[in-house]
């Protein structure tokens, strides 16, 4: 039931994705095509029905293609149509859905295809090396940083300020990989223990191998349409009720990292739009961005679903389990399903859409759900995007 009446109604009526895998034979265009085709099939539309395409893709350097949006357009159905690409680093996936929302809400488009793709496997010697170029070229890159440093620094600060143990953080990895077993698209679903995480290879202390999501190839797509059209195609449209995004400053070494204030800002923007006043009471299911296990805890706090420093306690008590009060990452998240950056963010949005529609299959959470939230994060610990949906 739609409750947000201030904006022009926008509904999701179809979604599709490819499995996420370490490396695919298929080109980025072919992956985008596959996801788009599945989304159109679920919506019951053909490409000719779509009037605009929004593309999401993170660093061009992974695919080694400059102006990647233009290149991807061909596989994403963006031929002889308005096509554009939005970009907020790792937070791009959810931004793609947000952008598709305002394409429709503005009245400029009626039926929009949102497509996100990432193919991380082509980078040599390791996709990791691409991340050296995300740092400030003058004051940071000369130190030869790698991507995991950034997460390790934030994770350690979070652990230090909130007195969080590695064991508590590992529980997130255990939960998400367990949830991913039920997800047919997942790359790394399975039963692991806290001990497995703590005994895995130390990459950058405190980050160990099983704290981290894998390198993946994959694509995801969604169809968003205006409210009156939605009713023609489905009896169960899922409404986009709130969107929010925020970018913090570039100077990350000069600010507190223990709490993502930019996410709180983005969440408040989305909640205000959706009329959510008590997030912990009103939100039924959540997909916070979890490229690393501590990130899920960090983000649950930023989403105001736990007080500062309390997410680990709630996690331990099962509050965020599939059968808990607010199931978190029922899809298995990036840790379990895989992390083709932009596609992973859109996968999170799709997961909430399937949950609210009741078609999540084995992933479906036990409680009945009415309001769901998906979130993504990116850049130099500065970007967050939040979307609120209702059935």
């Amino acid at each position, binding site marked *: 039931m739609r409750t947000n009446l201030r904006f022009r109604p926008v509904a999701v009526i179809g979604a599709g994705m490819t499995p996420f895998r370490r490396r695919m034979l298929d080109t980025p265009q072919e992956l985008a095509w596959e996801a788009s085709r599945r989304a159109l099939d679920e919506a019951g539309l053909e490409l000719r029905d779509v009037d605009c395409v929004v593309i999401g893709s993170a660093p061009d350097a992974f695919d080694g293609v400059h102006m990647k949006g233009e290149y991807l357009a061909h596989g994403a159905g963006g031929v002889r149509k308005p096509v554009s690409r939005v970009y907020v680093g790792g937070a791009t996936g959810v931004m793609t859905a947000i952008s598709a929302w305002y394409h429709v809400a503005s009245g400029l488009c009626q039926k929009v295809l949102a497509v996100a793709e990432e193919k991380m496997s082509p980078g040599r010697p390791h996709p990791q090396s691409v991340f050296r170029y995300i740092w400030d070229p003058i004051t940071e890159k000369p*130190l030869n*940083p790698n991507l995991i440093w950034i997460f390790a620094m934030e994770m350690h600060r979070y652990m230090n300020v909130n007195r969080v143990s590695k064991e508590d953080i590992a529980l997130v990895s255990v939960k998400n990989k367990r949830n991913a077993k039920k997800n047919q698209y997942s790359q790394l679903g399975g039963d692991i223990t806290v001990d497995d995480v703590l005994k895995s290879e130390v990459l950058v202390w405190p980050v160990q191998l099983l704290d981290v999501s894998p390198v993946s190839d994959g694509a995801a797509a969604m169809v968003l349409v205006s409210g009156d059209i939605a009713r023609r195609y489905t009896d169960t449209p899922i409404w986009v009720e709130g969107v929010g995004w925020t970018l913090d*400053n570039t100077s990350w070494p000069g600010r507190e990292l223990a709490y993502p204030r930019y996410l709180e800002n983005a969440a408040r923007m989305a909640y205000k739009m959706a009329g959510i006043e008590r997030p912990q009471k009103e939100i039924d299911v959540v997909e916070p961005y979890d490229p690393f296990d501590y990130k899920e805890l960090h983000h649950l706090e930023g989403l105001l679903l736990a007080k500062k420093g309390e997410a680990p306690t709630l996690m331990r008590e099962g509050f965020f389990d599939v059968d808990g009060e607010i199931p978190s990452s029922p899809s298995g998240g990036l840790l379990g399903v895989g992390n083709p950056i932009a596609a992973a963010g859109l996968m999170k949005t799709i997961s909430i859409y399937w949950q609210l529609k009741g078609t999540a299959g084995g992933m479906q959470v036990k409680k009945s759900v009415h309001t769901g939230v998906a979130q993504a994060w990116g850049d130099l610990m500065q970007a967050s995007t939040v979307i609120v949906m209702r059935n």
Partner: protein
Amino acid sequence: MTVHPLKEEDLKRHPVVEDKPKARYSYTAGQALSVFLNGLKEGKILGRKCTKCGRIYVPPRMYCEDCFVPTSLWVEVKDEGVVMTAVASFISWTRERLDHPEIVGTIRLFPSTARDYVYPGLFHRICCSYEDVRNMTIFGKIVKARWKPREERTGSINDIECFEVV
């Protein structure tokens, strides 16, 4: 159609097109960072102060992001500060295994206080043991820059070898 996941050994069965991007740049340091880099050569850490809100930017910026006015004063901050976070890296930037971990972190430089949410800060190497990182004793320690000898400095962030406990 469906997608086709590959295993490592499958890669040999498919043609691979190799290309090394020839993308090279000469980044303009600009007003703020040029002076900052020259300062490092002199063994000084220079910042810019916003006279409206008092915030000091290290590395310097010519504008205050909070007030949206130009920062108008050069100030020298101490080459001493507090370790806010530290990590020990066992992998290189190409993800090769390192025998000895490289320790890096962020340092809140003085003048600043523990209550500040934003402060003059640097990301740099920290000279301490893996144990200090692992048991978090390095957090909150006061550290000071260890400078390269004057003749070896080039006007780079690497003119500071690392920050070490005072």
